[in-house]
């Protein structure tokens, strides 16, 4: 084997292993932080925050809706960038991150859409309106689904990774364009009949739990991403000696 192959060998196996072992230690702490943030945020938001002057208690779905929306958006960039990193530096680990990020992002987007729709019924009297932000969220869902579906078109992991990374990148160029254009479209066609209650105008008593929930969702995202990636690592690196070792140790414990 020449040097070139050894280098890819290092890339292939070195970093996933490092990631796997490091995250092993981080995970418990992250889980702890996540749980406490989510519990505090939920209890605070659902039980202690004052009801909204106009919407009463129905507004409390905000504590799911807003964090899910915010993290779903950020997740797309994380996915696309890790795909790009994989494409440029041929780092396997970042492909694995990309692959794991897609279903999580799609799920969060879906939660945002569903909670929004549920919220829409009492506030607007309809499950669905063609508001700019809602529309762009729907498009985001399709972008996520696209990245997920494209995988199945390829039989080899490598080709699928590269293809998904390209799609993610093309999408990343487009996401800002989509957001801008949808905004623009909405103002062109329709007077802003529906206004989101802007965050700053919120009462601090409602706002603080929201912040806690958002941070909580970010840690939730981190935890699930790490878990998904670890599974992905095991699935792909099953031939590596350290994975075999791991499996042996685990079965020995039982």
């Amino acid at each position: 084997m020449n040097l070139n192959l050894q280098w890819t060998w290092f890339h292939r196996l070195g970093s996933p292993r490092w990631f796997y072992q490091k995250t092993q230690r981080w995970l418990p702490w992250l889980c702890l932080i996540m749980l406490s943030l989510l519990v505090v945020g939920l209890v605070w938001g659902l039980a202690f925050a004052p009801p909204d002057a106009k919407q009463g208690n129905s507004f409390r779905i905000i504590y799911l809706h807003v964090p899910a929306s915010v993290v779903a958006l950020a997740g797309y960039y994380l996915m696309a960038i890790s795909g790009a990193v994989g494409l440029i530096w041929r780092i396997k680990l970042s492909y694995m991150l990309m692959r794991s990020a897609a279903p999580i992002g799609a799920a969060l987007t879906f939660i945002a859409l569903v909670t929004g729709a549920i919220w829409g019924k009492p506030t607007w009297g309809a499950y669905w309106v063609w508001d700019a932000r809602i529309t762009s969220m729907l498009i985001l869902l399709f972008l996520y689904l696209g990245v997920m579906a494209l995988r199945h078109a390829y039989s080899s992991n490598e080709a699928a990774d590269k293809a998904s990374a390209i799609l993610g990148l093309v999408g990343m160029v487009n996401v800002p364009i989509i957001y801008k254009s949808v905004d623009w479209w909405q103002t062109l066609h329709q007077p802003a009949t529906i206004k989101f209650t802007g965050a700053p105008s919120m009462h601090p008593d409602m706002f603080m739990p929201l912040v806690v929930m958002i941070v909580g969702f970010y840690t939730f995202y981190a935890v699930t991403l790490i878990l998904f990636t670890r599974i992905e690592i095991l699935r792909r690196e099953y031939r590596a000696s350290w994975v075999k070792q791991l499996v042996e140790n685990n079965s020995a414990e039982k």
Partner: protein
Amino acid sequence: MASTNILKIEKLAFERNDALLFEPVSLELNPGEALHIEGENGAGKTTFFQILINLLEPSGGSIHFRGQKFGDCRYEYLSDVLFIGHQSAVKGDLSVEENLRWMSPADTSSEEITSALRSVGLEHHANMPCFRLSAGQQRRVALARLMTTSASLWYLDEPFAALDKQGVEFIEDRMQSHLDQGGAIVFSSHQDLVKTTTRSYRLNPCRELV
């Protein structure tokens, strides 16, 4: 030091589904030589060609073209290569002549095209759309490229498929004259050649885990 061989392959390996497809290949090809790649159905001959023309990445090993590493002379290499595969890139909706013109070097004159078509026996079909042709005639359209090409390294994946005996003989003659002019050929075929002297290399299956 300039090496004399056109192609030098060392320990070329290809991995599919966690196993090597064939035993790693090491071989050299010199000007004037024809190499017959043998192997049963599914041995990996087509895959091997696709690695040679840089469509698939090998999992290991190296390929040198005229002494240079594969990656360092991509342009020189690919402009000196002619590849005709199982699927012969003949467009059914184009006429025979259009197809050949399209697949030949840009400076090919009309006379050259006509004489190439004559030599493969398609001069009366020049304006017929290719989907009307018989299987062997379609193959002949693709092989007419051998008359117009200026590449010195030919990769032919089963050139004789669907050809009748006279066609096979004609292609063998053409291969021989190419070799005589210092060209080199790598080809696969399930039939043995009659006229051309060739060296053969067998792709052996290798189910060894990587």
